[in-house]
């Protein structure tokens, strides 16, 4: 089956937006590490993790081609549903004010204080900076790897568009990080997470259906219909959640 525009366009957009969120979160910690303990070790730590993650994508991507497509669609679709609906659930609860919004400035300040109190770097090579940057890049990067593989493995030829979206996000965030040298606090993170949750849930539902040999009414265009349906549902749930919870419990603390 060929790849339609609906499929390729939504894959790139989903991968880009999801990766953008993860890269922004990683950047905040890397900036804190670099500004407090020195840039060399922090950047080497982060770059090392990116290399490891690229190897994982290449290895898993190749291995997945050996498994029959319906099985991949079913398993990856189920995982994507768990992942996407979990993400959407949290975005709805954040939008309703029931769980705290992600505050990059507060996280930056918290990490800067923590790394500052763990002693100054004795040499040019700082193990703490390397380990912290490596860990956060691996942690956030693992989610990016999962998203790229989940979106890319569902159909032959989709790994490249999904990877391009992730690489584009990495480049955009890296360039902004180098230019600004401060956390990207103005990025509307919950709006992005809301959109990504909607898109990942739609992809998960579509893949599961394909894996179960369902006939979608409009073939690949059903992905767009699913995106619209999840968006309407999520937007309707936000005020419903607000009305169900106590109005005297606004949550503004950073997570």
């Amino acid at each position, binding site marked *: 089956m060929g790849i339609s525009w609906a499929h390729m366009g939504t894959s790139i957009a989903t991968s880009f937006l999801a990766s953008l969120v993860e890269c922004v979160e990683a950047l905040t910690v890397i900036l804190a590490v670099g500004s407090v303990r020195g840039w060399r070790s922090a950047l080497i730590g982060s770059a090392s993790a990116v290399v490891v993650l690229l190897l994982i994508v290449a290895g898993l991507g190749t291995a997945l081609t050996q498994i029959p497509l319906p099985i991949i669609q079913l398993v990856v679709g189920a*995982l994507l549903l768990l992942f996407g609906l*979990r993400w959407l659930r949290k975005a709805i609860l954040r939008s309703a004010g029931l769980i705290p919004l992600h505050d990059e400035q507060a996280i930056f300040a918290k990490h800067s204080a923590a790394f500052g109190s763990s002693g100054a770097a004795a040499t040019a090579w700082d193990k703490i900076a390397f380990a912290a940057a490596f860990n956060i890049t691996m942690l956030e990067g693992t989610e990016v790897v*999962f998203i790229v593989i989940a979106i890319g493995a569902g159909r032959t030829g989709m790994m490249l568009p999904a990877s391009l979206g992730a690489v584009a996000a990495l480049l955009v965030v890296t360039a902004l990080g180098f230019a600004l040298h401060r956390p990207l606090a103005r990025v509307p993170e919950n709006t992005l997470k809301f959109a990504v949750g909607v898109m990942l849930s739609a992809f998960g539902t579509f893949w599961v259906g394909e894996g179960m040999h*369902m*006939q979608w009414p409009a073939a690949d265009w059903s992905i767009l219909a699913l995106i619209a*349906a999840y968006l309407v*549902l999520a937007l309707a749930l936000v005020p*419903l959640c607000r009305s169900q919870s*106590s109005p005297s419990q606004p949550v503004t603390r950073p997570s």
Partner: protein
Amino acid sequence: MNWIKTISREIYGLFVDDGVFALAILLWLAIVRWIIPRLNLPAEATGVILFAVLALILGESVLRYARRKQSPRN
């Protein structure tokens, strides 16, 4: 072996926040896989049913969380 525990916990956390929510999704997927095909529904209807119940599961989970926030015990 602490790092294995850490990685396992991180991977689990990627997919599960609310255990009941995750379990309900998996249970529904099992029903769609093994029971729905036996009902001889129109082919195009199964996708709509798949989405509709997932929507209900999501709605129930967020509303349950919202109600719990309202409870004086929380």
